[in-house]
């Protein structure tokens, strides 16, 4: 299979395999602030929680080791508070208590629908945020605090954060090709949606990751893993998950894909995208179709150079294109091999 070296190089170039020192330090400070300040803030609101009732777990790409380079570092850390049912109250208020525990000048704190976000800026530009989904743990049950500060739409949503981690780690850990394919799909997403104006326009990482885990097609030959083929087959399988309606003239009227969480509450990970605009799903489908077509062309063409050009259309300009064979061959026979 072509482009093995190029896929390997590209993966090395885009992946983040370790939590960087500054990020780790900021996360540790943030978690310490939560554990040290939140119990008192809750106590001021007649909720008795001790430090030992609060725990944090890693979530998202850093947990699954599928992080890729991006302009803004995005870190997910779930905050789980053990409490009794009577203490749960209004989830929006609970999130405001979490916000208050971490609201200091060195970070900007905001309440998002599914989490509290701590953002960090460098010279006025956000370069890092840590999202803190807040869970209430009642016995062995978990509930995610949902809703913005003044939104009328809020709830404690049934959830299973540990179960989701277990599911995805179980799929990804020990399967290096799957891990790479997830990173490539995320890179494709970042390239195609680089100019997106709205978060809901962009296919969510969690949806793409679960789809890739479910539909992953491992591919190898006698020279090892064949990532080009695995990427093409996995993306094609995702494409085939779409239900598409077309007009008589072939114009796409609607495109829909669903990907429920594999654990409670089993909600569709593309729900927000679907609910925001039909056009978002059509764009997603069209972009994916184009990517599958380009990857198919990359597989079918003979020249590694031409294959690289097709893959670059999918994964962006950073994907290395092998030298044209003609130019390589023209100098190959004239290379110096002797030393004095």
């Amino acid at each position: 299979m072509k482009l093995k070296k190029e896929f390997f190089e590209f993966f090395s170039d885009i992946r983040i395999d370790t939590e960087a020192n500054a990020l780790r330090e900021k996360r540790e400070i943030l978690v310490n602030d939560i554990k040290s300040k939140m119990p008192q803030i809750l106590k001021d609101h007649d909720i008795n929680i001790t430090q030992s009732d609060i725990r944090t777990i890693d979530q998202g790409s850093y947990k699954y080791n599928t992080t890729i380079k991006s302009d803004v570092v995005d870190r997910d850390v779930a905050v789980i508070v053990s409490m009794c049912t009577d203490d749960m109250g209004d989830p929006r208020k609970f999130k405001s208590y979490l916000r208050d525990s971490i609201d200091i000048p060195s970070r900007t704190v905001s309440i998002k629908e599914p989490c509290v976000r701590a953002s960090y800026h460098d010279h006025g530009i956000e370069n890092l945020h840590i999202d803190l989904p807040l869970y209430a743990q009642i016995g062995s049950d978990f509930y995610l605090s949902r809703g913005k500060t003044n939104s009328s739409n809020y709830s404690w949503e049934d959830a299973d954060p540990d179960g989701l981690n277990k599911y995805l780690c179980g799929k990804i850990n020990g399967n290096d090709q799957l891990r790479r394919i997830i990173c490539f799909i995320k890179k494709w997403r970042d390239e195609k949606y680089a100019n997106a104006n709205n978060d809901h326009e962009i296919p969510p990482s969690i949806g793409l990751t679960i789809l890739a885990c479910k539909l992953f097609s491992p591919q190898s030959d006698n020279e090892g893993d064949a990532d080009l083929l695995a990427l093409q087959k996995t993306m094609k399988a995702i494409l085939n998950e779409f239900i598409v309606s077309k007009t008589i003239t072939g114009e796409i009227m609607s495109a829909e894909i669903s990907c429920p969480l594999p654990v409670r509450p089993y909600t569709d990970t593309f729900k927000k995208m679907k609910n925001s605009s039909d056009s978002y799903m059509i764009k997603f489908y069209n972009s994916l179709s184009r990517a599958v077509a380009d990857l198919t062309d990359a597989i079918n063409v003979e020249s590694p150079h031409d294959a690289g050009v097709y893959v670059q259309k999918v994964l962006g300009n950073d994907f290395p294109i092998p030298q044209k064979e003609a130019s390589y061959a023209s100098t190959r026979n004239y290379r110096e091999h002797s030393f004095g």
Partner: protein
Amino acid sequence: MSIREILESYDKITIDQEIVDGIFIFSLFGKQYLYIAPLEDNPSAMAVIFLYNDDGSDIPHIMLKEETFPGVDCIPQGKYRPVCLYEQESIVGAIMPYDAKVRDAIERLIELLSMNEIEKEREFQKEFMFYWNGNSDSHNTHNVYLDQNDSFSEFDVYYGNKSVRLVKRGIQLSDIDDRDKKGRIWTHHVENNAYYIPITDKRGILPPYRGHNWTTQTIKDIVYSEQIEHIDQHTFQVLKNTFPNTQNIIIVFGMELEKIHISFAVKIKCKNIRNHSLLEKIVDDTIDIEQLFTIRKDYYYLCEQIGNDCGLLGKNVLLIGGGSLGSYIAFELVKNGASNLKIYDGDNLEDVNVLRWAYGGIGKGSNKAIALTTMLKSIHPEINIVGINKNINQDSLLIELSFADMIVITVGSSNEQLNINRILVEAGCSIPVIYIWLEEGGINSHILFADYRHAGCFECLYTDIDGNLVNNRARKNTLSISETSIIRNGCGGTRASYGTAVLLRTTSVLLDTIHKFYDGQITQNVLIDISPNCVKISDTPFPMRECNCCGNKKDQSMY
């Protein structure tokens, strides 16, 4: 095809001007280039390309200096920067057809200009030290002495006349206390704490080049990055726990680029705040930085640069015998990583020996071990040679056994070899021992590799199948050759004639043997026969279970 036709065959190229035959200005990707075709009457000549009236700050391999063409009126006035298209000596121009040379330069230029950001980053990194030292602010050269690439380290700083030595603590430089007429050559300065920080992830780290100078933020981004962990967690923790006691600091960064390690030093000027950790100084206190012209000079690095086998690095080697063969072997051992060498020899270097002494006439009249010590130390200040002006005896051999990692025996006398062998066997020597000897006449030589934990010792070669002691069975010379190759000096002394080719040949095989041992290819004791035509495992029966030294007295199951 003419050169013009070849250039015009590229859609992306527009010829702006044909200055004279073979010299063009053309446009490509929005910039102009001067193209000088290879001279047809010089078979090794290649095409040369210059970037015209543009500083090429975003293109790798554009030379820093501008070129002028004095006296060449036909070339338009302007700024010309050479484009470095070829690695030095990478192409055999003399065998390349002329058209191919013309095309090759163009193809390389197009490839260079078509690179994506990551490819450009790699190309800039390839020439990191060129850009770093080319943009350095310092008048002094900073010579770095490390003994590894991967761990945080502290340096001692020594100032000389025009250079500064940054010496990792623990490294002893034999010339650091040397003096000249003005006094000490190297003065230990304590006003700058200096540290080595290895970079483990080099992504995004570019050298300073035109318009992209390093700033305090660049240093901060390396040690305190939020996305790419440029320095590992252990180093980061050490930075937090290290408290410099000086206001300014010198940092030497290390980075691996395509199997080559580079080091570059930067002086960091800080606010005068006490009790700040090294990390706090770098992240919070830095006011300004100064790029320092840096050259890595340590023995470890130089060995790495020439592709030395690292098996010998850091090993203590005992060399018994510093005669002709010993002098060649000592020289090569030191150049191959054995920087800790102890040499025993009681003889003096005589006139008659100098033509087969590795250093010629230097040290004539003095003890061979001492002469070797003086010469070998001059190779590099980290080389630690101890010369002992006597032949080794049982007591000293047993003492040395506890310090050495390998023994190399180059004494030619069978009596001495057998005696040493006996002592080592009886002492239960557990380190590798290599016997090397030449036969008279300069044809045959031998190497016996012995690890006494395995079957076989030097005395096996002097033992027949009945267990009787006989002359060396590995000998290839006949008695008549032996007689004609002995030079008698008329007063009872004799000298074997053998020239120097056998010395070089045998030394070379010894280096291969040591390499094979450290590479795990030698797993049992082995006798090697060396001749001008062949190097082979000897057909002499070895080891001998009937040997009275290692065989009959030992566990027979070893045989």
